[in-house]
């Protein structure tokens, strides 16, 4: 097709996007006029123009005509014309109903043509499109072609995979029938191509209904046996770099993984022989130095090992597999090291090979330290976790801890969880456990989630023998000049409970303990301060001698008149309690916490949740081990999430827990239809700009309703608790809240004075500007109320702070020097230019505040990473205040221009 080649080279010669579009538009006009013209086009021209349209479409342009001409080509008698017609249909699937019946008609004709070339084109089209309409039309015909005696081999191959596609997309339409038994016998077919295609089909069907296809086991074993015992030249066409039918072998081994080990002794023996032969071949000198040879050979080997692990019944094979993988751990090919680590992870869970896996611990630790590819290091962490038991726990935990200091941000949280779990599970003495968790907080405090520090407190409270040690250790840790807030939380709690155990030492007298805790107070967030206040009142009970000092602190204006209601209330109540209650009452009220009920570690549940359902390692081993250790497992519930905004944030509801009185539940059924308010007529309330740097507070308030928010963000995920408070004494009826099109299932009534809580799960898919809108509608008295507010979900919420040295900072700053990566803004200060406030805002914004980086000490620099589902964007920022002029200059450099712009806009509003 000369015309096509000329057109393609024209396009390639276009110097600019504009020129290309111009050329394409010219061509589209030309084709349109040809199609519309009076002169009937011959098949060749039609084919040429349809092919040009296809090329234009593949370049990323919309094509809105030519479908009819493509359908016409389907009924041509010439192969090349038919082929282009089918290709166009397959690539530009169009559910236009008139055309579908024409297309199906053409396919039907070709299927019954008895011309193998045409039949294949038709079958490929069905397999490529796989639509429901096609399944309806051909689900009966395709199996017939597949098992008919006179069907050509190549057509059988296509029919098998075509049926596989229909079965995956519309399983309900593919009837099982007498053809199933005959499909299984395709495993015996002389043509290995037919066997290759049929094995995939049978595997898919066997996964769905194993009983119907269990006769395939003996046939698959026989076939496999013939392949692995053949000389490398026997299979001719199917030998690939001296390896006999590697892809078919892999497929057969996968089919066998749908079933338990064969019960029939003879078949079982034959299979074991096959697996041994495959393992033996791995030890033989290679027949070729080419990587293709070793890859093909090892593809079969890894699949054989998967089957051995799946059966988990032959100790010798398991140990041999483990030794083989051990050799690969030191191989010079990264691919093999990666796959060996991955495969060994499942081997570690078998009781037969667990010990054998453990012998490779040093190599795996070395991999953790030296591998360049983060995904390989990740596998090494997984394997260390899987091979850990009482005998090597101390070593493994120590190695993971030291790796944590340099680990990639993307996997830190997971490592923290794994260390916390291992430390607890294999703790012989709990002092080691306490040390480990405190080290976790020291090395990676930001990645230590609440579950982790809750758990250490639960354990300390439940075990008398470790309490004194814990108190001593946290006391010492708190003496560091800068400690993580999580350490202050643990320290406050533990000293409040068990500070008395170390008070005898003059170096940790009650007053010193108190002063130490209180020196951290002003640096902490509100929840930590609240926790510290509780520790103080506990101190009053433990140490009457510091009562006066503490009362003075509680009495100060910064406590008693604190702007935060929670802190103020605690200060007032604790002060009052300490003044009026007798020692006895104090001792009763402030008694040591009772032991927590023993239950499964919430950290474990979190790790399972984090790894999610579609996880690389199904963690069979974890389930198996945990069952024996803890007597039960908690299934992680995957959070439902739907991409409904298309502007970057995904919001899905998990559950709503309406704390409204039970009496109203009857109304749920009556009013459960969701009301979607018409957004166009609503006044849209922006959120207060302080939410950019804060996560909690009152979002909206009018005479009737108050909306409060609490939210937390980690990496690209967030959770927002929305509280709707009814300020009136009358019930709200037909209450509905929705975020864009999604209605949040909420209780439709809110009693007077009551509060309704909802939880939103948020995922940042890509960077975004617009905040999602929360619409609320309810009936108060006789009138319908509509409220729309923007939710304070801004791009910076998905910031993870990054600490770096001055040298690193400037190096990266230079790397991000392209003009579009930098956004700068000079603006007038709206508030007083207080250094501490500015620092707090930058940290609240989410970036790490880097001290001593900028040569000018009055400037601020920060760094962090914005996490979205798909990418991470590194961000650097610099804020230069000019106090004389009351101006700021703010500079943002990130790897993405839209992110630089958005962050600059958001942050500049704050000062």
């Amino acid at each position, binding site marked *: 097709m000369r015309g096509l080649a000329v057109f393609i080279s024209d396009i390639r010669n276009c110097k600019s996007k504009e020129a290309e579009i111009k050329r394409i538009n010219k061509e589209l006009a030309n084709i349109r006029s040809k199609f519309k013209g009076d002169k009937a086009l011959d098949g060749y021209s039609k084919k040429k123009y349809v092919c040009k349209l296809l*090329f234009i479409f593949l370049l990323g342009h919309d094509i809105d005509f030519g479908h009819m001409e493509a359908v016409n080509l389907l009924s041509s008698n010439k192969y090349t014309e038919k082929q282009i017609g089918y290709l166009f249909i397959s690539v530009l699937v169009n559910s236009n109903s008139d055309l579908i019946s024409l297309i199906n008609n053409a396919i039907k004709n070709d299927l019954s043509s008895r011309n193998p070339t045409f039949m294949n084109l038709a079958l490929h089209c069905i397999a490529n499109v*796989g639509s429901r309409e096609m399944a309806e039309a051909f689900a009966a015909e395709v199996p017939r072609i597949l098992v008919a005696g006179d069907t050509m081999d190549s057509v059988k191959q296509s029919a098998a995979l075509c049926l596989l596609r229909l079965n995956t997309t519309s399983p309900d339409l593919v009837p099982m029938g007498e053809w199933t038994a005959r499909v299984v016998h395709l495993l015996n077919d002389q043509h290995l191509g037919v066997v290759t295609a049929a094995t995939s089909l049978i595997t898919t069907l066997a996964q769905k209904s194993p009983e119907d296809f269990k006769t395939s086991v003996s046939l698959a074993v026989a076939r496999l046996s013939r392949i692995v015992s053949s000389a490398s030249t026997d299979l*001719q066409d199917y030998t690939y770099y001296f390896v006999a*039918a590697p892809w*078919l072998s892999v497929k057969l081994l996968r089919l066998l993984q749908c079933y338990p080990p064969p019960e029939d002794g003879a078949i079982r023996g034959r299979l074991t022989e096959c697996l041994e032969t495959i393992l033996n071949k791995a030890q033989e000198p290679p027949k070729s130095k080419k990587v293709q040879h070793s*890859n*093909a050979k090892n593809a079969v080997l890894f699949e054989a090992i998967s089957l051995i692990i799946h059966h988990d019944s032959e100790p010798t094979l398991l140990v041999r597999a483990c030794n083989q993988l051990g050799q690969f751990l030191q191989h010079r090919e990264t691919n093999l090291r990666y*796959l060996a680590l991955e495969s060994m992870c499942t081997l570690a869970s078998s009781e037969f090979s667990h010990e054998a896996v453990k012998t490779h611990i040093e190599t795996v630790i070395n991999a953790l330290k030296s591998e360049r590819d983060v*995904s390989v290091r990740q596998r090494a962490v997984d394997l260390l976790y899987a091979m850990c038991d009482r005998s090597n726990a101390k070593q493994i935990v120590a190695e993971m801890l030291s790796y944590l200091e340099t680990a990639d941000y993307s996997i830190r949280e997971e490592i923290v969880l794994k260390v916390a779990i291992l430390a607890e599970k294999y703790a012989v003495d709990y002092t080691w456990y306490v040390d480990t968790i405190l080290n976790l907080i020291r090395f990676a405090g930001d990645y230590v989630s609440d579950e982790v520090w809750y758990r250490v407190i639960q354990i300390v409270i439940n075990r008398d023998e470790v309490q004194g040690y814990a108190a001593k250790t946290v006391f010492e840790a708190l003496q560091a000049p800068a400690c993580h807030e999580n350490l202050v939380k643990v320290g406050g709690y533990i000293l409040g409970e068990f500070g008395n155990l170390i008070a005898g030492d003059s170096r940790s007298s009650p007053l010193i303990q108190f002063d130490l805790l209180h020196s951290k107070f002003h640096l902490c967030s509100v929840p930590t301060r609240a926790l510290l206040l509780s520790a103080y009142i506990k101190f009053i009970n433990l140490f009457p001698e510091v009562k006066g000092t503490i009362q003075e602190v509680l009495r100060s204006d910064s406590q008693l008149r604190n702007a935060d209601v929670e802190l103020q209330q605690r200060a007032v109540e604790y002060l009052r309690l300490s003044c009026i209650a007798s020692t006895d009452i104090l001792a009763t009220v402030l008694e040591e916490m009772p032991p927590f009920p023993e239950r499964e570690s919430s950290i474990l549940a979190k790790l399972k949740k984090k790894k999610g359902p579609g996880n690389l390692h199904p963690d069979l081993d974890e389930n198996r081990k945990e069952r024996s250790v803890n007597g039960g497992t908690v299934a992680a519930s995957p959070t439902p999430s739907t991409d409904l905004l298309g502007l970057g944030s995904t919001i899905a509801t998990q559950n709503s827990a309406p704390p409204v009185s039970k009496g109203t539940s009857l109304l749920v059924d009556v009013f459960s239809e969701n009301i979607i308010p018409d957004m166009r007529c609503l006044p849209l309330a922006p959120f207060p700009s302080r939410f950019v740097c804060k996560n909690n507070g009152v979002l909206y308030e009018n005479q009737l309703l108050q909306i409060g928010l609490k939210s937390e963000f980690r990496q690209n995920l967030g959770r927002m608790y929305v509280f709707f408070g009814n300020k009136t004494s009358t019930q709200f009826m037909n209450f509905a809240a929705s975020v864009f099109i999604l209605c949040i299932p909420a209780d439709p009534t809110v009693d007077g004075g009551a509060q309704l809580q909802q939880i939103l799960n948020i995922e940042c898919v890509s960077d975004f500007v617009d905040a999602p809108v929360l619409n609320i509608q309810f009936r108060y008295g006789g009138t319908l109320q509509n409220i729309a507010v923007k939710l304070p979900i801004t791009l910076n919420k998905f910031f993870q702070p990054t600490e770096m040295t001055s040298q690193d900072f400037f190096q990266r700053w230079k790397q991000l020097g392209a003009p579009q990566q930098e956004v700068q803004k000079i603006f007038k200060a709206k508030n007083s230019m207080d250094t501490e406030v500015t620092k707090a805002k930058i940290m609240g914004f989410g970036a790490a505040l880097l001290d001593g980086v900028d040569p000018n000490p009055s400037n601020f620099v920060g760094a962090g990473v914005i996490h979205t589902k798909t990418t991470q964007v590194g961000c650097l920022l610099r804020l230069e205040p000019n106090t004389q002029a009351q101006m700021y200059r703010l500079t943002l450099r990130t790897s993405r221009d839209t992110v630089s712009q958005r962050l600059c806009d958001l942050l500049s509003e704050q000062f």
Partner: protein
Amino acid sequence: KWYMQFDDDEKQKLIEEVHAVVTVRDAKHTNFVEFRNFKIIYRRYAGLYFCICVDVTDNNLAYLEGIHNFVEVLNEYFHNVCELDLVFNFYKVYTVVDEMFLAGEIRETSQTKVLKQLLMLQSLE
């Protein structure tokens, strides 16, 4: 080539994402990379990357060699294939893909058989 249903915008997004995760990797990295709930197996030939996205439980090396097998067929069919052959003959490349991979599975692995079939189809022009 798509073996699952996506709308055009989603396809474009996927192409960009795959490009972003694959092209930043160097020779010291593995030929495998996790991608959403799947994994990508890729192989680089000069400036051209061939990528396959498969289930996480699929056999990495089998698909890695599946790519090479495909490339050897292209090389034979186009006599020392280069990028331009693939651009100018994109409609033929689709035929080669369908001969070797169908419905997301490996259909035929014998180079001899595939080439014989392709030559037969060529003769029908």
